[in-house]
């Protein structure tokens, strides 16, 4: 048997190009459906785990899918905002803890998520480097966001406000990175987190201005002067919050009316959950409550239906490909007729010829399997990213 494999290996090596093509074809044919399932499973795991960890979600009445995708997975689909008082109202019931989430903005293509500090406790997020945000203008980066932005504690990044040239409104705010969160293998890895009050500053609801002399000047700042002179008033509007100008920052109006995307409600028990859900039964109210798990289950069912369709197509493509490979092999057998004659002349039994061929097929299959495994292993770390793209875009 050892000799069969040796000779088969020699033959395969001699015809490298042919072998390579065969192996790649077979390997990829096998890797494609397996990879697809890997992605689907990663997506399912990624989505389900997140949804399971988020018992109830309150947001603007409308698409519960958009609401869930926005508040849990930070998708770019915009949902109407609700008011901060919704969180207060939920807390006031005494049935659930309320975690407001404001996921409307993006910063350098990463979702910018305004949360209260409780969010980090709730999701089990702890800084791997540095600290959590402490004052206005601080932000903490998810592990992948930090990688992508190339930032760590001490770094800065500029938020993009709704309209950078809106003279009457807000200006880009320079965010200070205070820390980088440990990798959580969840959507949190991609986010830039700020305290919800900082999110409101970015929104233009809070701003700082004081006497001119109080404004710090730092000419070497890459953002130019850290202050911007407002055109309409003789006041200075800060684009960077520093401990020196912090006290000049203030909010106008009642914070209870400030916008948030959703409230994650953590009911104290099942009874409280039922009671809380009962509060949102009114079809005319502006808010609705959803169970993210129900939403993602519906979503996943659709995705798996698409997956099954893909499987069918791949099965067909795979069969055709295997037939082609068989054709190639049988053609090459014809080409090898002379060689088979030779080994027969050298005293080889017909059965041995078959064994040699079998060894060759087995070797090709093994190498193809290795290629397939290698492809899958290389793709594995990206499976959840890929799934994220699938589901969110």
């Amino acid at each position: 048997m050892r000799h069969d494999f040796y000779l088969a290996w020699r033959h395969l090596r001699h015809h490298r190009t042919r072998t390579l093509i065969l192996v790649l074809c077979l390997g990829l044919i096998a890797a494609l459906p397996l990879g697809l399932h890997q992605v689907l499973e990663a997506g399912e795991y990624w989505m389900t785990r997140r949804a399971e960890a988020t018992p109830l979600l309150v947001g603007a009445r409308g698409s519960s899918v958009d609401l869930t995708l926005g508040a849990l997975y930070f998708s770019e689909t915009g949902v109407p905002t609700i008011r901060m008082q919704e969180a207060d109202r939920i807390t006031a019931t005494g049935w659930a803890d309320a975690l407001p989430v404001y996921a409307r903005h993006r910063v350098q293509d990463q979702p910018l998520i305004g949360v209260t500090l409780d969010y980090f406790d709730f999701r089990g997020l702890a800084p791997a480097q540095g600290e959590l945000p402490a004052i206005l203008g601080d932000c903490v980066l998810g592990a992948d966001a930090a990688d992508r932005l190339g930032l760590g504690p001490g770094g800065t990044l500029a938020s993009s406000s709704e309209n950078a040239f809106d003279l009457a409104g807000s200006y880009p705010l320079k965010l200070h990175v205070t820390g980088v969160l440990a990798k959580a293998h969840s959507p949190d890895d991609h986010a830039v987190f700020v305290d919800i009050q900082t999110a409101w500053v970015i929104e233009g609801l809070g701003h700082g201005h004081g006497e001119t002399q109080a404004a710090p000047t730092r000419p070497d700042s890459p953002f130019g002067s850290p202050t911007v002179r407002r055109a309409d008033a003789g006041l200075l509007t800060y684009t960077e919050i520093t401990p020196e100008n912090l006290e000049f920052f203030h909010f106008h109006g009642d914070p209870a009316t400030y916008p948030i995307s959703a409230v994650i409600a953590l009911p104290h028990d099942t009874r409280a959950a039922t009671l809380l859900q009962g509060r949102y039964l009114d079809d005319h109210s502006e808010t609705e409550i959803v169970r993210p798990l129900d939403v993602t289950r519906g979503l996943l069912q659709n995705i798996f239906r698409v997956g099954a369709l893909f499987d069918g197509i791949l099965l067909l493509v795979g069969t055709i490909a295997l037939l082609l490979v068989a054709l190639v092999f049988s053609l090459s057998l014809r080409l090898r007729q002379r060689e088979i004659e030779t080994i027969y002349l050298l005293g080889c039994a017909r059965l041995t010829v078959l064994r040699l061929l079998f060894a060759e097929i087995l070797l090709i299959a093994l190498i193809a399997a290795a290629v397939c495994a290698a492809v899958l292993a290389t793709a594995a770390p990206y499976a959840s990213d890929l799934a994220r793209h699938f589901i969110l875009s």
Partner: protein
Amino acid sequence: MIEIERLSFRYPGAGTGVALPALRIERGARVAIIGPSGAGKTTLLKLIAGILTPGTGTVRVDGITVSALDDDARRNFRISRIGFVFQELELLDYLSVYDNIVHPYRINRVLKLDRQVRDRARALAEHTGLGDKLAALPRELSQGERQRAAVCRALLTEPDLLLADEATGNLDPANKLRIIELLTRAAERNRATLLAVTHDHELLPLFDRVIDIRQPGSPRAE
């Protein structure tokens, strides 16, 4: 000793074949077989080797009636007793010279590729001037080197009967001589019988006996 009686063979659907009323070749004899193309020289060698089975008549080698053996037995007989240098050499293009020489040991269970055999293969290659070409592929060799490699493969089993089918074809005179000398010396060393088909009349003096396939009854001893 090879004994052939009333042998006849025809390729199915073809006019060619061979017919021999009787032929005896003593053990240890060095015999050249001559005759024009298509006269059945190669067919005769294949019938003796048991690669082909005769239509009628018998072929006996050292008392064994080869034509009466079943397929397996005939193959085993061929592998263990006969060394065959084919007209087309039958070297495998994807194996190195060394792997070609030991190839019979890799495809036949009755032969065991042990250390002794490997050493012998190397020694044979050394002896035939292929010592530094063991790793080369056949297409990297000259025609003479390829012929020698084929001879080495035939000699490796130390056969009782050496069959050489045009082993010197397409070679320059010096190489022709070298191959025939190789074969005759090996036959002598192993006290083996040598049956060589040849077209080269200048080589005939090196043989004990010359058989013209058209008149096998009239041996021309030279």
